[in-house]
């Protein structure tokens, strides 16, 4: 008998879990949360996730490589500050370019330290996070940066005009990036190589895949996406606040995990992470629409994350326990038990 993926329920369950979660939250909120089900509300939700969704793209790839990037939060803010801080000198095209390149540079540094110097990514990115935090304050002199020229307003307005219902340029940018990277991961050799590198670096190396290049690439992608997220976000709000990316880190980590990207690497996908963020955001919005406070938000976010982690851990636990069980023995067992029961009945009868 051919053993097929189908018999592995757990894997299947994992595959669709995030979409199920999405449907459940969407359904529940649409039915019960006041004013939830409206094009307008969905648009605000999509606007709200635009930044974190963009950030999650790169972060997911890093996690697929079995690494962690704690610096994304500060990269967002840093890129934001550069975009508006340098605008007077370079104009928007220039400042945006510098911001994104700056992001790429940070990612490159992270990548080098992880891949070449072989320092644990948790540590490396914790370090760069601290450095960037200082750099941001130093650069901004402690005050947030804004550009309130008509040009800036024009750009901001443009990014928010709705091309179609639910679709503003800002959302479109995120959408394009998500689709592009997801496609790259699924349909190109390079994309699959990220998974192999994350799954087992040795395998990748033996297959002649330049693991270091992919690790560095992942970190660069992560920082660049974070930077883009920051740039777009400040272009919309015409102001770079020093706390811009503060919340993003924990948010994106949780979402990525909930989305089903394993921290051990080799598993997951960008789309799932984004769906997870969307689900969380709908949950949050719903909770607010119910007139409940942020503590409820935090509490539920924690519960969902905890549930997912626990579920996955328990699943693997069970899976390993029963690995190699012989179906024919289980059948035999069933028959034997039934015979035993018959015996029992018989003896009672006598």
């Amino acid at each position, binding site marked *: 008998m051919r053993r097929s993926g189908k018999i592995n329920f757990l894997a299947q369950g994992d595959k669709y879990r995030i979409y199920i979660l999405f449907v459940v939250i969407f359904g529940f909120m649409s039915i019960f949360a006041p004013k939830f089900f409206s094009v*307008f509300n969905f648009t*605000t939700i999509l606007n709200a996730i635009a930044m974190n969704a963009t950030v999650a793209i790169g972060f997911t790839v890093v996690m697929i490589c079995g690494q962690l990037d704690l610096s994304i939060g500060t990269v967002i803010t840093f890129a934001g500050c550069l975009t508006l801080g340098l605008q007077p000198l370079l104009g928007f095209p220039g400042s945006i370019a510098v911001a994104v390149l700056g992001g790429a540079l940070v990612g490159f540094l992270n990548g080098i330290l992880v891949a070449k110097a072989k320092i644990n990514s948790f540590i490396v990115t914790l370090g760069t996070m601290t450095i960037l935090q200082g750099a941001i304050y130093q650069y901004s002199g402690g*005050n947030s940066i804004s550009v309130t020229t008509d040009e800036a307003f024009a750009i901001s307005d443009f990014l928010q005009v709705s091309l179609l219902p639910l679709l503003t340029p800002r959302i479109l940018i995120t959408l394009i990036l998500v689709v592009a990277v997801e496609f790259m991961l699924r349909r190109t050799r390079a994309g699959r190589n990220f998974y192999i590198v994350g799954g087992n670096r040795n395998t990748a190396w033996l297959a002649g895949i330049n693991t270091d290049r992919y690790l560095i690439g992942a970190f660069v992608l992560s920082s660049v996406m974070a930077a883009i997220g920051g740039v777009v976000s400040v272009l919309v*709000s015409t102001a770079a*606040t020093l706390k811009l990316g503060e919340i993003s880190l924990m948010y994106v980590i949780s979402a990525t995990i909930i989305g089903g990207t394993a921290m051990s690497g080799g598993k997951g996908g960008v789309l799932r992470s984004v769906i997870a963020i969307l689900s969380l955001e709908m949950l949050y919005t719903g909770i607010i629409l119910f007139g409940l406070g942020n503590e409820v938000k935090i509490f539920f976010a924690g519960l969902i994350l905890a549930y997912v982690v626990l579920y996955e851990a328990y699943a693997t636990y069970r899976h390993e326990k029963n690995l190699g069980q012989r179906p024919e023995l289980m059948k035999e067992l069933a028959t034997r038990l039934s015979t035993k029961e018959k015996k029992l009945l018989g003896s009672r009868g006598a």
Partner: protein
Amino acid sequence: MKKLAFIALAIALAAFVAVPLIGQTAAQKANLAASLKIDTSKLLSADNQLLLAPSTDNRKVPKRPADPNKLPETDPLHWYDMEWAGWNVKPTNIPKSPMTGAIGKKVIFIVHGDHPWTTACILGAQKVADAYQMEFKALSPNWDKVVQDQMIDQAIAEKPDMILLIPLDAKGAVQQARKINQAKIPLHLFNMLPDAAALNYSLGWTGPDDFGQFRLLARAWADELRKRNPGAKSIGVAYVQHAPGGSPFFARSFGPISELAGYAKEIKTLVAASPTPATFDANTTMQLVSDWITKYGDDLKGICASDDSAQALGIFEALEKAGRNDIVVVAAGNSKQGMDLVKDGKLFGITYQTAEGDGALSVQYAADWFNGKKLAVRQNLAQHIITAEDVEGFYPPQW
């Protein structure tokens, strides 16, 4: 909140029934009359202070220098755009008052984030809103600007009679205000003094005059420093700054610095820094101040903190360890810890920052606007410095 709505409705109906022929406008007139009768000036906050104490500030608004940033940081006018923001705005299509009375109006009250201060602030606002039987809805984005923007969108969608907003960020406020303005919804900003440009789109601003308060505090502080160091040629002081990213960061250090540059030249600024990574962590502040004491020794005569709870406590831990009781410490805000320290004669003075009053004044401003009163673009909360003499009067603390 629902109850309020009903009462409001009832009154409106009553008015309607009273004058059947003239109909709506009459009802509105009646509503306006009823609204104008309501007196909120006697309301009290939890610390038994007047909720809406009239401002005692009678300073003249100076003329804006050509380019404030050209001036040195020690020049008060360098901070013009922060300190005097709002006094000379160019209002851009600000809606006219409907003159229909505050009763039954719906206001959405968006704060910056969850904090005991916020809870008190909302409470104060609620008191006034109740007095005017307004439909009052408070939202908190929990310090996340992305969420605040989202809340603003949703508030706009609800088409309230007015939006009251504490912007999360001075500069970020501009775009937020502009957005609300374009949606043709009256906007009132309060508490966090935003970038001047933001005020172009709002009816006005109410809140604590951080700079003003600290100029006041600075003078009292300077007098005390002089008293303790008679005839000293130079008196060294240090500033524990607020978290970066907002006017308090500047008002609570450069406010006094620029004030004293004129008022008490002998007082020299040794250092000004914000404890990192945790700005409002007592332990971090203690470490910072301990090191300052090591560095400056007896030259350090005074410390000005931007927070009178964690920061102040950290400072006094450091002072006690060094056995320094000669250093005059002043701070912002009247948290319980701060007032206790004043009572124990440790803190010399703190600014009175009424959280309830802050919320209350903003709603009062809204009410007055509905009632068609003539309003200054900017209204400051009453200024006051709490010292050992009067600290007792401010218990129990609001939060």
